[in-house]
C-alpha cells in the first residue's frame, strides 16, 4: 500500500514543559517522513517514536496485552500499600484515571514533580506566586532572569518562542530585554546573557535574601564584600535595576529546587518577586521539565485537593511530601508494589530508591523500553502521546493544549490501560 503523504501543522511536542505547538510533520504510510520546527531533542524524539517499542511482557516473557493488564490488576489488588508513580509524560486523561485507580487501591500516588519542581509548589503553598503565561513574558518582559535554569539544553526552543530571542508586542527582540543568569556554572544559557552571576553552590538562599534586603533599601553585611560568591555592589546594582523595570520575569529551574534549602530557596525567590510588584510588575515561571508535569499537579489537585505525594489508605486523600513522596516511600521500603506510568525511575531516582523496585512487584506502562522496564515484572505497552494517542497536556504556565494523534498505533493509550486496570480491580 502506498499512500499520498500528508502534512500536519501545529503539532504539539510533548518532550518538555514548553510544549511547542508549531511542529510540522509529514507522514506517509503511517510513518514520519519529515519534521520541521523541532529542536534537537524533539527531532530525536519524533525520529525514535516508533522504534524500541515495548511489547506486553510478564517476567521477561512476551504475553498477550490483556494478560499483562490482568497481571497488573492482580498485583495492585493484592498489594497492601502500592505506589503509583510517574505521570508527568502522559496525558491528563491518564492522570485522571491514575488518581481514580489510586483511590480504588488505597495507594500512594506521586508524580515526578516531587523530584523536580515539587519544592517550588511547597514554597507556593507558603507564600503564593506571582506568575504569568509565556506569551505575556514574550510581549512585555524587559528583564528576564534565569535562575538555576538552563533552557538552552533543557528547553531548547524556549528562548526563541517565549523568552530571550522571541518577538513580542512591546518587546520586539533581544535588544529590548536585559537577560540575566544566576547559576553555579557558566551554562550555555549563561553565555547568552547580558550579565552572568556565578553562584557559590548552595548559596541561592543567601543571595535571594540579600536581594530582598537591597530592594527594600537595607544592605546586608558581608566581611569579604560578597554574598554567595557574588560581589555585594553588583547585587546592589541589580536590585536597583529590578525596581526600575516595567515587567521583570524570573524563570527558575532545578538549581533552586534541588540544592540546599530546596523549597526555601524557591520561597525566597517567590518572596522577592512578590515584593518587586511594589515597584513595577514582576513575575516568575518554573521551567517545568516533562511535557505534562504541570498537568500532573493540576489533575491531582482538582480531584484530591493536593498536587502530589497523596495517600489513599484511609479512602480519602492525605497529602504529605516527605512521607507519601516516591523517594521516601521507596527508601523506607514502605510500599509493596509499584505501578510506574510513563516514567523511568531506574534512571531518574536516587540509586537506592530505584533499587528497591527490584524487590517488589513492579509494573511499567510505557511505549518505549527504558531502564525500569528492564527490572519490571509486568510491562504494558502504550500508544505514543501526541503521535499515536490524543489527550490533554498542560504547559509549564498551565496553558492546556490538546494533542492530536496523527499515526495509528498498535497499542491502546495510557488512559485506557489505566482505566482497564481499574475496572478489573473493581469487578474482582
Amino acid at each position, binding site marked *: 500500500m502506498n499512500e499520498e503523504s500528508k502534512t500536519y501543522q501545529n503539532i504539539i511536542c510533548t*518532550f518538555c514543559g514548553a510544549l511547542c505547538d508549531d511542529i510540522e510533520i509529514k507522514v506517509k504510510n503511517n510513518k514520519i517522513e519529515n519534521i520541521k520546527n523541532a529542536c*534537537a*531533542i524533539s527531532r*530525536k*524524539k519524533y*525520529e*525514535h517514536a516508533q*522504534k*524500541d517499542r515495548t511489547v506486553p511482557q510478564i517476567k521477561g516473557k512476551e504475553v498477550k496485552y490483556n494478560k499483562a493488564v490482568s497481571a497488573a490488576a492482580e498485583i495492585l489488588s493484592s498489594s497492601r500499600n502500592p505506589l503509583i508513580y510517574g505521570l508527568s509524560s502522559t496525558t491528563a486523561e491518564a492522570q485522571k484515571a491514575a488518581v481514580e485507580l489510586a483511590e480504588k487501591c488505597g495507594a500512594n500516588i*506521586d508524580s515526578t514533580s*516531587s*523530584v523536580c519542581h*515539587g*519544592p517550588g509548589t*511547597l514554597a507556593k503553598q507558603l507564600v503564593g506566586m506571582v506568575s504569568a503565561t509565556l506569551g505575556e513574558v514574550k510581549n512585555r518582559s524587559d528583564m528576564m532572569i534565569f535562575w*538555576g535554569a*538552563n533552557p538552552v*539544553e533543557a528547553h*531548547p526552543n524556549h528562548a526563541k518562542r517565549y523568552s530571550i530571542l522571541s518577538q513580542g508586542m512591546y518587546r520586539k527582540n533581544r535588544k529590548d530585554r536585559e537577560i540575566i543568569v544566576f547559576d*553555579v*556554572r*557558566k551554562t*550555555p544559557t549563561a553565555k547568552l546573557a547580558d550579565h552572568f552571576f*556565578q553562584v557559590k*553552590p*548552595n548559596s541561592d538562599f543567601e543571595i535571594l535574601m540579600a536581594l530582598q534586603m537591597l530592594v527594600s533599601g537595607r544592605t546586608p553585611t558581608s566581611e569579604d564584600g560578597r554574598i554567595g560568591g557574588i560581589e555585594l555592589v553588583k547585587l546592589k546594582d541589580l536590585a536597583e535595576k529590578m525596581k526600575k523595570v516595567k515587567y521583570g520575569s524570573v524563570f527558575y529551574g*532545578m*538549581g533552586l529546587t*534541588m*540544592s*540546599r534549602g*530546596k*523549597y526555601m530557596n524557591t520561597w525566597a525567590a517567590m518572596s522577592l518577586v512578590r515584593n518587586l510588584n511594589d515597584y513595577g510588575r514582576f513575575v516568575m515561571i518554573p521551567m517545568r*521539565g516533562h511535557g505534562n508535569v504541570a498537568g500532573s499537579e493540576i489533575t491531582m489537585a482538582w480531584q484530591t485537593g493536593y498536587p*502530589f*505525594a497523596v495517600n489513599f489508605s484511609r479512602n480519602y486523600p492525605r497529602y504529605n*511530601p*516527605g*512521607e507519601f*513522596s*516516591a*523517594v*521516601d516511600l*521507596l*527508601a523506607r521500603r514502605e510500599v509493596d508494589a509499584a505501578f510506574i506510568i510513563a516514567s*523511568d525511575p*531506574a*534512571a*531518574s*531516582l*536516587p*540509586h*537506592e*530508591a*530505584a533499587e528497591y523496585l527490584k524487590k517488589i512487584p513492579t509494573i511499567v506502562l510505557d511505549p*518505549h*523500553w*527504558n*531502564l525500569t522496564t*528492564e527490572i519490571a515484572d509486568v510491562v504494558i505497552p502504550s500508544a505514543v502521546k501526541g503521535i499515536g494517542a490524543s489527550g490533554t497536556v498542560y504547559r509549564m504556565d498551565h496553558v492546556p493544549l490538546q494533542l492530536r494523534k496523527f499515526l495509528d498505533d498498535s497499542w491502546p493509550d495510557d488512559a485506557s490501560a489505566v482505566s482497564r486496570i481499574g475496572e478489573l480491580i473493581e469487578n474482582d
Partner: protein
Amino acid sequence: MADKRSFTLITGRTIKQGMASVSGKNNQNYEDSTAYVELNENILEEYNLSEGKKILLYTDSGEVELSCKKGDLPEEIVFIPYGPQANKLIGTDTDGTGMPSSKGKKVMIKRKEGEDS
C-alpha cells in the same frame, strides 16, 4: 592517589543527554551521554588526569566510576549529567520534602589505581 579534598556535585541536563534519553535508554548513546564527569581543567591536571580517563567518585550515599571530561566549571564543582550514574551518588534523604539533594552534594574523587595519566 587518595585525597580528602571534597568537591560539590552538580547533576543536570545536557542537550546530548536529552537527545539520547528520547532515543532509546538502552542504546550506547544514552550511556555515553550520562556516564562521565566534567571537571575543571586545573583539577584534571592536579590529579594527573586527561580526558577519557576513569576516576572514582564517592559520596556518603554511594560511589561510581566515570570517565573524565574537561568542563567550564569552577574548581570546586564537578558536573555529571542526570541519569543512572549520577544517581548512584545521590542519597535518599529528602529533608522531608520528597526531593533528594541532587545538586550541591559533597563528593570526593579518587584517581583510579593503575590508570595511566
